[in-house]
């Protein structure tokens, strides 16, 4: 059966010229471009996802994430460039790609009048999985995503989060070599988001399959993805591991949350300190300051404060450097682009559902 594929690493043909030796990529986009009339949705996109990797496609709404995913699946034809997914060109042989790639569309829908189980069974039949094998697999998947209890209830009774989990089970029915999840956490409550992210992380570990995940929410991408591609107005403006991206922004600053004991106000001292860039009060916590220091400067700041006679009771380097990079890159890209960028961009390119943003 075609869906019982070997590990993607072996499933691939010879590596493309220039591909990294460590396992041929399971997803490979080369100069992928999509235009709708005069509007460019995706421009000259080149990236790859290697076996076993969780790759995050991060970008604001309208950046072209969904368009990219549709091109990878052979659901829409690129205007230029090419893609290879599990070694197959999706434009040439979309069926083979669809046989081996599980896909969770953004805002996935189900046949509401059918049960969750019946919906998955339909997918299994469309994939020509023998009924008996499918039944066992579906039972296992429903249990995996925590829907075993409601498996025989109509999907119309499911909550948004349950539907999303059913969608992930649905994408796994064909036992795919690659999983593509388009905005899997959108419009879920925080609990639902956490469930889905945990599920994705577990699937990545258990199955060892490559996962491509798109999101406009940075913290979610950060939570599960090994590598991230930052996408803006149809272009990939940066890609790499979270660490690499953070390093790329070498000149970047860290933001340190600071509170000192005894009602002392270190603002004056901080302003005069050479290693400190900028000081403001933290809108989220009264009496707390936000101090901008050179990257990695948090530790020396603590020492300097103590030396200057202050007693820091709270000092935390905010882990939002990727966020900062993201913002900077997006704003830089927005400044470079004369016109034709999405209207809803760069004002707030990164709506975060976390209460505490970077400012």
């Amino acid at each position: 059966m075609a869906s019982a594929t070997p590990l993607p690493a072996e499933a691939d043909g010879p590596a493309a010229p220039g591909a990294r030796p460590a396992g041929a990529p399971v997803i490979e986009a080369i100069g992928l471009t999509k235009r709708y009339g005069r509007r460019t949705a995706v421009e000259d996109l080149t990236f790859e996802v290697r076996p076993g990797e969780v790759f995050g496609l991060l970008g604001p709404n309208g950046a072209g994430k969904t368009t990219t995913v549709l091109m990878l699946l052979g659901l829409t034809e690129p205007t230029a460039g090419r893609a290879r997914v599990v070694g197959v060109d999706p434009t040439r042989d979309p069926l083979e790609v669809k046989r081996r790639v599980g896909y969770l569309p953004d805002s996935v829908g189900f046949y509401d009048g059918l049960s969750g189980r019946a919906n998955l069974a339909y997918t299994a039949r469309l994939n020509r999985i023998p009924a008996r094998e499918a039944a066992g697999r579906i039972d296992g998947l429903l249990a995996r995503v925590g829907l075993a209890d409601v498996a025989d209830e109509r999907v119309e009774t499911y909550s948004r989060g349950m539907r999303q989990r059913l969608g992930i089970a649905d994408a796994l029915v064909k036992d795919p070599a690659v999983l593509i999840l388009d905005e899997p956490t959108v419009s879920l409550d925080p609990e639902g988001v956490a469930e889905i992210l945990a599920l994705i992380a577990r699937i990545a570990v258990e199955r060892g399959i490559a996962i491509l995940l798109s999101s406009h929410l940075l913290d979610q991408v950060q939570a599960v993805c090994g590598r991230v591609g930052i996408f803006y107005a149809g272009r990939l403006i940066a890609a790499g591991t979270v660490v690499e991206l953070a390093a790329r922004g070498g000149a970047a600053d860290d933001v340190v949350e600071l509170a000192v004991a005894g009602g002392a106000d270190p603002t004056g001292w901080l302003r005069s300190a050479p290693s400190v860039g900028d000081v403001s009060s933290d809108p989220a916590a009264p009496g707390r300051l936000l101090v901008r220091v050179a990257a990695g400067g948090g530790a020396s700041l603590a020492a300097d404060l103590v030396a200057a006679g202050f007693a820091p009771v709270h000092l935390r380097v905010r882990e939002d450097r990727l966020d900062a990079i993201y913002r900077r890159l997006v704003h830089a890209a927005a400044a470079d682009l004369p016109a034709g960028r999405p209207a809803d961009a760069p004002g707030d390119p990164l709506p975060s559902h976390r209460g505490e943003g970077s400012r």
Partner: protein
Amino acid sequence: MSAAPGSRIRPRRALRPSPEPPPARPRSAAPARAEERPPSHGWRVVAAKETADHLGSVRLYVLAVVLTIAGVAAIYSMSQVIRGAAADATGYRSLFLALFTGGADPVPAFVTLVGFLAPLLGIAFGFDAVNGERADRTLPRLLAQPIYRDDVVNGKFVAGLLAVATVLVAVVAFVAGIGLIRIGIPPTVEDVVRLVLWVALTVVYVGFWLAFATFCSVAFRRAASSALVAIALWIGLTLFGVLLATLVANLLSPPGSTSADQLANLRLRETLERLSPDTLYLQATRAILDPRVTGFGIDAALASQSQGALPSTVLSLPQSVLVVWPQVVALVALTVVSFGLAYVTFLRQEVRA
């Protein structure tokens, strides 16, 4: 917008199912592999699911009940007439078929009722075929499975036709049974065959409307718009088809005063009328259920006149089939055109709304 990949534009039907694809294959083999692509059976899976949906659907039962009530009324009142007149030599060759073709004022004939409601059957099972999947947001998920796009349209068409055929056969069998009990005269084999052929003809006619409604469901994102457009065509053809044909014929070939002019006008009008599936179906119905019908329109009338007017000419079943053959072919052609339109439009559409 560009045509979507996954279309059947590339060869596929004559292709052999390939065994499990080898795990490793050289890059250069990709174009060649398209030649050994296995045929898709996706349409069967789609059809099976859709048929099950239809058979459990409210709309099927509503339509079946409406048809049954109308049918029983027609058959019952006609059987009343037949019982009253059975002693006389009636004009009907077959009392059994007369049950279906005869109207007992004010109730129209059963075939007239079915002819009127048949488009509704087709529209009911087709108007939300594709836009329904869009509205439910199931379309991207469906098309991400290893099936072709036309598998979706084909499967839904087949399922709709099956549902319609089920309703029609059930209703016709039911009212035929009632009619038989009422008149107490068993039908001949030929009568039964003619009735069965008529049901088949009706399924073909409904097929046209199903195909057209399916096209609407592709072309219009909202089910309401789709249904409205399909119903507009139905009402338009039924109410204004003849009027339109007359207008156009008078414009292109004015009736004039000579009989040649008038004949030309009449011929053109009849030709135009035959562009309507409605006319085609009504003509075919008459000929298949009434062996005395030897042709249609002015030419048939002229022919029988010149032959010395033998009103008692009665066609055998094969002869009747021959008479309706052009009508059936035209109906099928119209269906294929509608279906092709639906298919091509769908292929060129984006997956997402």
